[in-house]
């Protein structure tokens, strides 16, 4: 995984050095000798690159097979965006300029920053969900929770005279309501990974100590159910975090593109 990142990082670094050198010695390069041309060239190149890279979203959702693997698009999106940011810096000659162009440049900076937050989220999700054995869809997870509940009901009905079983089953029934929590509330909730642990299995087993066989199965079903619930909630939480980030990053990109178009029109007219 890291090898491919290294290649992209080196390539981006190399291109940055190349453009930096062109910027530094622009007076000695005939094509860039005109100050206006060099400014426009860096600006337009940076803008075109961002425009192209923002198509990652359409590659993801509409053009399923356009231009190679999505992984390649994501890597290009990450690294070439950094390059585009650098080109815009060269275009602005490291100055803010007018309030509009300064605002546009700031928007770009924030956009790149949120992009980096996205990178952090993308690496955090697999780590946060590593404890769970499956990557089921939310609907499938709910089905599995329901199946565990039904099994618990069956087990309790096997020995209805055994009070601890019935009480536990009822307790677990009550806990099911958690899954209907609003997804936006989940966004702000703490991690749900602590909902299950082998220690908790021990607690449940201790409760059912007098019921060998059935008791162990009940304990395992309860733990399995709790794990599925935790997975459901945790997955939903991270989905919402990713979605919230996507909305922010997407909105910032759209705002930057709109501001850039206005900036270009203003420059061309005046």
């Amino acid at each position, binding site marked *: 995984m890291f090898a491919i990142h290294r290649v992209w990082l080196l390539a981006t670094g190399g291109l940055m050095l190349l453009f930096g050198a062109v910027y530094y010695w622009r007076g000695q390069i005939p094509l860039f000798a005109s100050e206006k041309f060099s400014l426009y060239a860096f600006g337009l190149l940076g803008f075109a690159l961002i425009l192209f890279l923002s198509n990652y979203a359409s590659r993801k959702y509409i053009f399923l097979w356009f231009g190679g693997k*999505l992984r390649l698009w994501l890597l290009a999106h990450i690294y070439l965006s950094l390059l585009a940011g650098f080109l815009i810096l060269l275009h602005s000659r490291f100055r803010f300029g007018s309030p509009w162009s300064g605002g546009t440049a700031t928007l770009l900076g924030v956009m790149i920053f949120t992009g980096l937050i996205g990178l952090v989220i993308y690496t955090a999700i697999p780590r946060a969900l590593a404890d769970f054995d499956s990557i*089921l869809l939310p609907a499938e997870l709910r089905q599995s929770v329901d199946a565990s509940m039904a099994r618990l009901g069956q087990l309790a009905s096997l020995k209805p005279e055994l009070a601890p079983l019935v009480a536990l089953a009822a307790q677990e029934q009550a806990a099911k309501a958690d899954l209907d929590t609003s997804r936006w509330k989940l966004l702000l909730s703490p991690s749900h990974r602590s909902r299950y642990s082998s220690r908790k299995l021990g607690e449940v087993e201790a409760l059912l100590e007098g019921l060998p066989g059935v008791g162990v199965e009940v304990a395992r079903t309860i733990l399995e159910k709790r794990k599925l619930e935790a997975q459901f909630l945790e997955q939903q939480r991270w989905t919402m975090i990713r979605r919230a980030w996507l909305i922010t990053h997407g909105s910032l990109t759209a705002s930057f593109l709109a501001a850039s178009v206005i900036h270009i029109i203003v420059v061309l007219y005046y």
Partner: protein
Amino acid sequence: MKSAMAFTPTTSTSVEEPGGKSSPPEALLRLSEQTAKIPSLAGREATEILSEVPLFAGLTDEQLGRLAPGAIIHQVEPNSVVVREGDYEETFFIILSGKVLVIAGAETSAARHLGSLSRGEFFGEMAALSGYPRSATVITAEPSLLLEVTKEAFLSLVDHAPSVKAALDQEYKARALKSQLQLTSLFQGVEQAVLDELSEKAVLKSFKKTEIVFREGDPGDSFYLVRNGFAKVSRWKGQEEFVLAYLKGGTFFGEMAILSDEPRSANVVAVTRLEVVQFPREQFLQVLRRYPDVEAKVRKEIEARKKWQQKIQQNVTLATTLKGFVEGGVIGGRDVLMIDLKKCIRCYNCVRACREVHDDGHSRVNLKGIKVGSLLIATSCRHCYDPECMVCPIGAIDRDHTGRVEIKSHCMGIGKCSKGCPNGVISLVNVEAIKKPKGRVTAFLDRFKKRRLPKVVPDGPQPAYLARRKRYSIKCDLCEGFPGPACMGNCPTGAAQRLNPEEYIRYLEQAM
């Protein structure tokens, strides 16, 4: 090869006569890639031609009639490839006139001539009977007239004609033993007379999945060469089984106990259908005494295995992956969808992309699977080396020459394939459940999504039987017609990969 077409010679192919090593042909063309005209075979003419074949001597017109509908005559120019080693084709050939050469490793620098066949002889029975890929390449040595019989027609005849079955079984065993001994690198340099003697004493044995070849502690009375299939080598530590290695076609086992004169040190169990050549201990020892090179190769392999066992015991990831792959039956797959949980961000793009590229709107990727270390083996077709699903009574499930298992558009939803698959990768879908795109915007966007050509509902006027069907089977088709599987191509983090399990184990070993 199944369609009617004629042949022109492939001029670049060159093969020497028996005796010496053959030079690899520059460009071997598959029979189906060549162009020419083939006369049709039907009715009375068919039975007359078939009755002249020695293999079918004594068969009634009715029995021969079973072959005729599935038979095609090919007029083949010299130097044309009739069957290619490694291809997953299961047709059977009879030479009506001319001569063909049988070559192993034809496309490598180590091509070996296994023999030649002429009028009245047959080939292709090994792949047709076993379902394994072609074991050698067959090239015409002179203008030939070949009769090709489909697997279905061939097996139907074998079922109804005991004399043909007996003759084929005998020939199958003789050829399997001969080719295995000639091809195994272990016996390279051993004289033909010794190999013939060895093959007389050897026995071809088949084991069903989970059948035990031998147990730890058993006497070391035989040496084995794996011909086809996979087996696991394991030891029990208390209640837990520790998988040491797996064996595949072309490898050997059972040598340790023979050389050390001790009981078997591990169990060997078939994990798929397994075919082995078994040699008696004494015969094997005689070869070792006479050929020090062979003994050196065996001892080198023993050393390599000991080193591997050390690696396995030291590396938990490798051991867990190996055990998971072998016990989960993953090792028998050619192309397995593995999801790296260290990279997966749960975006379900793989499922969505799969749904998008299939015209019925159903995803063939099911993320319920088995976890092996940090990998999730998704419930998606593994395109097994030995597919247990290929039991459709109407032949609606088949595999192409690359080994890709596919469901044909004439599937009637009988469900035998679904029951046959031990991995549960084939689903039955109701025809009413075909999800058509809704709304103008969705329909407009769908134009860009390049949905695959309808296969579930074929183009043009539908045959009456298809209109009657209520359900059909779906499974991964590796997104035929697209640059690659959509699940893999549309994973943003590269977590979804379609890999060969053996290659993955090799990668893990090298990464250590």
